[in-house]
């Protein structure tokens, strides 16, 4: 069996905000169709790691290759890379002045230069994929949190990304709305999407993740299959964190 090259390859990644070093040498490979779950206490650098992957944060040091492209090289067209990496945010960040379809279509029209009809067709498909075919004309303020987050996922999927980054996608949702978003993520995994998820949804991680990465104080402390990391963590720090989460 030939091993495919990783979609995302991070080496020696460091990031400082002023005097504070938030990422202290991260090495991480993400294989095609893999779902990697990143957990850790707040302030451990999970979100920063994710945001470095499409250069929403500028890393201080190290290298990140995405789909064979060195994304930190000054010669790389970062906008071209970003449209192949989807990103889903904790607060959805939908454009409030556009409908659900408008949100999905903006990048299709402006970045991929699709004509209106084609963009509308793609937006319709993407919204159907997240179960919101009937909401294309709705504005974000007319949608529940769960629906908004699914529109945000559709916005990312419409560009046919090679991978999607999820930054605490369910943290801002009421508990009863979390399920619909997780279901969409589960479907995505079934469809073979490569995903990196920062989240506290341990149940989902156990059920769906291929690998769980535990971060603390800017470092990867431990990683492995969910059963191992949650069931039999090797490091004291992981154990303490997992116990806290489970008790909670």
């Amino acid at each position: 069996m030939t091993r495919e090259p990783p979609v995302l390859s991070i080496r020696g990644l460091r990031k400082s905000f002023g005097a504070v070093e938030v990422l202290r040498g991260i090495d991480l490979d993400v294989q095609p169709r893999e779902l990697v779950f990143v957990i850790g206490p707040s302030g451990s650098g999970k979100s920063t790691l994710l945001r470095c992957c499409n250069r929403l944060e500028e890393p201080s040091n190290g290298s990140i290759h995405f789909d064979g492209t060195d994304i930190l090289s000054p010669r790389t067209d970062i906008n071209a890379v970003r449209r192949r990496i989807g990103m889903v945010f904790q607060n959805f960040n939908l454009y409030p002045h556009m409908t659900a379809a408008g949100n999905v279509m903006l990048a299709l029209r402006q970045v991929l230069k699709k004509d209106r009809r084609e963009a509308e067709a793609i937006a319709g498909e993407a919204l159907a994929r997240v179960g919101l075919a009937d909401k294309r004309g709705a504005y974000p303020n007319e949608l529940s949190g769960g629906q908004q987050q699914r529109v945000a996922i559709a916005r990312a999927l419409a560009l046919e990304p090679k991978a999607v980054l999820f930054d605490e996608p369910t943290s801002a949702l009421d508990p009863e709305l979390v399920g619909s978003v997780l279901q969409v993520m589960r479907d995505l995994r079934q469809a073979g999407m490569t995903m990196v998820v920062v989240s506290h949804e341990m149940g989902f991680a156990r059920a769906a993740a291929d690998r769980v990465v535990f971060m603390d104080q800017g470092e990867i402390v431990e990683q492995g299959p969910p059963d191992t990391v949650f069931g039999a963590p090797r490091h004291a720090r992981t154990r303490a964190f997992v116990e806290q989460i489970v008790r909670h």
Partner: protein
Amino acid sequence: MSQWDRFAETFFNGAVMARYLPDIVAGFFVTVWLAVLVFLAGLALGLALALVRSLRVRPLNALIVLYVDLFRALPPLVIIVLLYFAMPNAGWSPSGFVATWLALTLVLSAFAEEIFWAGILAVPKGQWEAARSTGLGFAATLGWVVLPQAVRVTIPPLTNRTIAITKGTALGSVVAVSEILASAQTAVSFSFNPSPLMLGAAAYIVLFFPVVLFGRWVETRFAWKR
């Protein structure tokens, strides 16, 4: 003659009003023309400055802030007088109309820049990030995502400021622009009767009342529930 008759005779003298109405109407159109030019140039310049400021180039921003603070601090009348009476010494002699237009444009652009800039800042950072993460560039993000939201929150303060500053067209009377106030004052001097001033006041109401109503309509039209 009753007191009321004396009052009416003084302030609402039909004969005087009829005689000077054409002058006031002519002044009305000068004011409209001046106000429209100030409005267009002031807002365009203010928006342009806010856009340049959003690039966050330090030396440029320092200049913009200096410009904005200067023209917000100076009374418009002072700027008009400086342009009209001092610039000829520097080899440029603007007409009263041009001096008034330029002075009010500079002042409006300074206030408009601050308002637009505040509007741009009021758009959450997540909106930038969402757009940039889908591959939109800086300009496309600004144009499609940030400005449409920024402009909405700026409409109420911008309407107020625009009305306040375009009313400053009356200051043109100091440098011989025959707009409403100057026409009215001239008519008063010739007729020894203040009735033309009442005509002038009426002309300002005719001019600015629709603007106020329009501002209100735009505010409700573009407000959206959160």
